[in-house]
């Protein structure tokens, strides 16, 4: 527990601890996971992103041995999962989306029970439990019933239970659902500490974009059971340009403007990829994925001065995963599947 592995730089290719190829899972005729492939390098934090119902949890269930895939292969540390599931399982730790604990038992009793599944010696078990409680900051409440904990504390015990056998790869499935900001920060710190001190690889599943942006080296975006995009944050956001500019003139402004929205569209033709969408109130929104933000803003200023269009309908957006998802699917990530 004293080994220190330097955090790898984002985007650097590492030895893969997990490789999944063409995973398929069907429930009836419906393919919930449809050809998902992904890889996780040693010490890497992989963000696994998608709206509710995108197939994230089903993919994780297959990757962790809880569900048998209908197609595809999984390798853990270079060996086929199916050929040696017990060996593979000994290398992974899983923090389920649910608080997968026994609420009437204390944190220590829960951890003792789960440690038993990994055949640790009595001394090893005691040492690991003390260490895991320390990692999640719950040493002083270890004897209390889990039911008496706050939601955030329960989430932290949930994580501790997955660390007892010091896995090489940790799956965190929506670990911050329903927790306060303090517990969320604690969970982030724990994840970063595990990577930095023990070289642990992490698959971090979430539909909260800022968490993934903050934590993950690489990101896989899934929807409807398929991988939509994969790469580092930089790689993923590059096609979005320097940012997003939305201009929604009022109906009166558009009526006054000779040529209307078509004229406006032409003025920005060289500034990036343009789309015009209908707004809810019958007006239209001009959306530009901007190549050079200062140049585009200068153009906005000239148009406003020349036509009398107001600047109140202008919104600027930094390119982020939310806008990427919107760009890929036409939907907000929290709209659901």
């Amino acid at each position, binding site marked *: 527990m004293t080994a220190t592995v330097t955090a790898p730089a984002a985007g650097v290719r590492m030895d893969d601890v997990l490789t999944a190829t063409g995973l398929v899972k069907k429930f009836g005729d419906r393919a919930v996971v449809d050809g998902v492939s992904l890889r996780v390098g040693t010490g890497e934090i992989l963000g696994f992103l998608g709206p509710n119902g995108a197939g994230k949890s089903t993919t994780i*269930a297959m990757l*962790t*041995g*809880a*569900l048998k895939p209908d197609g595809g292969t999984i390798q853990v540390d270079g060996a086929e999962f199916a050929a040696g*599931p*017990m*060996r593979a*399982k*000994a290398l*992974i*730790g*899983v923090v*389920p*989306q*649910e*608080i*997968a*604990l*026994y609420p009437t038992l204390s944190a220590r009793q829960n951890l003792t029970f*789960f440690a038993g*599944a*990994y*055949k640790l010696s009595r001394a090893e078990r005691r040492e690991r439990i003390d260490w895991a409680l320390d990692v999640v900051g719950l040493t002083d409440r270890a004897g209390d019933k889990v039911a008496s904990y706050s939601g955030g504390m329960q989430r932290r015990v949930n994580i501790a*239970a*997955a660390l007892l056998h010091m896995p090489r790869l940790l*799956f965190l499935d929506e670990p911050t659902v329903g927790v306060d900001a303090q517990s969320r920060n604690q969970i982030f710190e724990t994840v970063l500490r595990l990577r930095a001190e023990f070289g642990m690889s992490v698959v971090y599943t979430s539909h909260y974009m800022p968490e993934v942006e903050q934590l993950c080296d690489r990101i896989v975006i899934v929807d409807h059971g398929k991988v939509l995009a994969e790469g580092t944050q930089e790689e993923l956001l590059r096609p979005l340009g320097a940012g997003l500019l939305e201009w929604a003139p009022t109906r009166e402004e558009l009526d006054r403007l000779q040529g209307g929205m078509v004229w406006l569209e032409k003025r920005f033709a060289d500034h990036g990829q343009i789309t015009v969408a209908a707004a809810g109130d019958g007006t239209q929104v001009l959306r530009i994925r901007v190549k050079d933000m200062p140049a585009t803003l200068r153009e906005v200023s000239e148009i406003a001065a020349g036509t009398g269009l107001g600047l109140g309908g202008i919104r600027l957006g930094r390119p982020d995963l939310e806008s990427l998802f919107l760009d890929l699917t036409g939907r907000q990530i929290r709209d659901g599947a």
Partner: protein
Amino acid sequence: MFAMIRKELLVLLRDRASLITLFVSPMLFITVMSLALSNSFDTLGSAPKMNISIVDQDGGIAAKNVVKALGGSDELKVTTGLSGDAADKRVRDGKDSFAVVIPAGFEKEVESGRKPHFSFVVDPSSSRQAVDPLQAAIRSAVLTVTSSTRTAVSLEKQRAAEHDPVRKAQLKKQIDKIDETWSGVTSTSTFPKGMTGVKYPSVYQQNVPGYTVMYVFFIVTVMAGSIMVERREGTFRRLLSAPVPRWQLLLGKVVPYLMVAVAQVGVLMAFGKLVFGMDLGVHPVALVPITVALGCCAVALGLLLASFAKSESQVNGMGTIVILVLAALGGCMVPGVFMPDFMQDIAGFTPHGKALNAFQEVMVKGADLGTVLPASGFLLGLAALFFVLAVPRFRFVK
């Protein structure tokens, strides 16, 4: 407020499990309990007949009249023409409540004025409440029949000696003497060959094993509910990701409940013994295989329920129905002797009925290990069937 009432009714109407619990369960219960208790509530004219057999080892007029009189009874379904052993077997097999044996020499006793004696062969596990009144009625019927037979025979003899005044006077003297000393009939009760036991089941020997069997099966909902919670809370999912084979996880879930079921029987039997002085029979060790088999059957049924139910409310609804209906059918609530024949036949095929009967065999009839093995095997067979049906459908995760 009306909106809330409307919403609540709508929610309730869509909750099939609750509707089944609220409406179907009591209907089933009412049906089963009414059928089970129908004998106790029937009027004299509508009561079903009780099975008995009569063994006539004498063949005299009095014995024939007794057979004729009992055979004509509205309350009895009498089997005649049997040997003593055959009647014994029918009682032992539970086909007859008891047998009436009229021994050889009965006629001579009637004629001589001595108390004619006959015997009952009774299943020691029969309820006294059911058997005693009937035996009393039969004793009374035998007394009446033998008395009238004796009178008729006497008169017939006197008539035959009508033309011999000396003989007639002698006969009259004899008959008057017999009339003075005539004091009825005597009877004794014995058990069928091979069945030991010195008493009928006490109220505790009915209620303790009866309710023990019933409450052992409550483990069905407790265990299935616990499985549903593990699915909902994700603890199964976590354990599936650990290097533990699935069969071990399944056994790890089943075995503790089996231990609880066995402990439950132990505690309740000890309670019956220590608090009420309940007799555990001459071979109490024979209770062990029944207990283990009963526990296996209950936990396998719990596994089956958890495999088919989709929610915790379904587990509670379906589990309660199964437990209560089987308990009522199996004679846990109402002794089998009060039930009509077809209900008693059904009881024999329920795990509850089988286990209760086996417990009573040991406690009341003194059955040993060998005797209860078939019933234990039946329960283990049922457990295996439930297990085989459950495992292919069992899911650790939702």
